[in-house]
């Protein structure tokens, strides 16, 4: 499968689950999604968003973002996100990290909701009419507790070091990637490489493997997280993220930046 073919699975109006900076962002898919052009996307950040979210917003493809935060980390605020929020062009469903995880866990378990402590009295809760507060039925006295409804994203997209020829994907200890795949209808994965060894063939590699059962498509994309890093593979290219942060302060600067080829990433090979 190639990136373009995978991007074709994304239809306008779909909800996409995307991982946090350090967990394996498929930056390789970002340009394929922009080229594909399916808009009105609802992004679900697990549990925060960064460069990929900012670029999809900058390209005008995003209708809403559910997230605990969007930022470029050391490079500061996410410029296209911040401007779109200020201009009211996107809806932000502000959450808190464990609420994002709770929503996925509910879907993983086939449950309609998952409880979560905290939140009571916050404006995060006040602006989430889709969340509910009940009294804990096990408590003797009043004990308000929030219920987070299940999130079932249409498509989860992430990048991982490797997959085997059976479609199993090695995610190591980044188990939020498994949580995304369990919850999502489809899961699209880019990887650095395909290996011949069966990842489920040994207990050692199986421990960090997302089984093919949960994986819809895989495409090879060397350095596919760039300019983000990938654990155990390569470090974040902070200079490039700073370059983006500076360029994307204006819509024009963003357009110019995106018109350049992705310098730090090898082109994906035909497969």
């Amino acid at each position: 499968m190639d990136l373009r073919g995978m991007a074709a699975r994304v239809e306008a109006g779909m909800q996409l689950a995307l991982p946090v900076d350090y967990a394996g962002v498929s930056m390789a898919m970002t340009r394929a999604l922009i080229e594909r052009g399916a808009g009105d996307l609802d992004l679900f950040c697990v549990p925060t968003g960064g460069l990929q979210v900012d670029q999809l917003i900058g390209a005008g493809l995003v209708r809403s973002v559910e997230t605990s935060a969007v930022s470029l980390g050391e490079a500061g605020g996410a410029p296209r996100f911040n401007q779109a929020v200020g201009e009211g062009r996107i809806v932000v469903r502000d959450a808190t990290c464990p609420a994002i995880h709770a929503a996925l866990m509910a879907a993983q378990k086939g449950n309609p909701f998952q409880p979560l402590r905290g939140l009571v009295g916050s404006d995060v809760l006040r602006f989430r009419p889709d969340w509910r507060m009940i009294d804990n039925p096990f408590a003797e006295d009043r004990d308000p507790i929030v219920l987070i409804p299940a999130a079932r994203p249409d498509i989860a997209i992430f990048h991982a070091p490797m997959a085997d020829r059976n479609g199993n994907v090695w995610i190591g200890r980044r188990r939020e990637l498994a949580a995304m795949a369990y919850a999502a209808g489809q899961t699209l994965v880019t990887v650095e490489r395909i290996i011949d060894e069966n990842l489920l063939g040994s207990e050692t590699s199986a421990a960090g493997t997302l089984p093919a059962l949960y994986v819809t498509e895989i495409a090879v994309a060397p350095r596919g997280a760039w300019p983000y890093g990938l654990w155990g593979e390569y470090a974040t290219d902070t200079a490039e993220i700073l370059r983006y942060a500076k360029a994307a302060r204006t819509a024009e600067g963003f357009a110019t930046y995106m018109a350049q080829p992705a310098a730090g990433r090898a082109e994906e090979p035909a497969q």
Partner: protein
Amino acid sequence: MTEVHPREILIATITRLLDGVRHVAVGASSPIPAAGAMLLRAMKKRAGAPPVRISILGSVEHNFFTNGSAELFDCAGQGRIDAFFLGGGQIDGQANINLVGVGDYPASTPRWPGSFGSAYLYFVVPRVILFREEHSPRVFVDKVDFISAPGTSAPGVHRTGGPVALLTGKALFSFDKTRPGFTLESLHPGHALEEVREATGFAFADPRDTGRTPAPDRETLALLRGQVMDELAETYPEFASQMRREVHA
């Protein structure tokens, strides 16, 4: 070697505030809290006291978690994290914190990144230390524009954690949740009460005997400038080398 660096006073103060914890979690971009935690760990080790565990979020080197990014929150919910640090674009006199933005939500301008895990961790980590170096009226406001996480909760709300102190570049405050409100504990060297009052947009209690935030003693300072800076450099190389330049200037 120079006098004690202002940030060394902050680090040593954090070490004092953490005394007694078994496990402290620190954000990925929080070198001063991390240094304070590392100094505590080194001091406890030297004294033969029970070990202090430090989890630095987003660090590969200091990542003791193996269950994805949910594990920090699970771990806190289990009561296994004793202390954590929170900041905020705005912090008010009731210890409410705002990580979302200024003005009428949702069209906040500026919009900040978002609440991260604060709306949960503030409730379940027993010893939350509010830390913000910038001490100005735009940060310390009378009332935050958006409550990412409230400083206190109504009776009956499950809350095993919350703020115990606020440390800024100018002063140290304790937090009294019964009032609720902050009390000035000490002024850092070089800062005056009047200056702090002008820089703070909320009212705080101000006992007559407010003293100076103590500087670390010689032994502690040596440990901080040696072993702790070496450890810190593994995760925060730029901060550590900047500190070393300024300390040796």
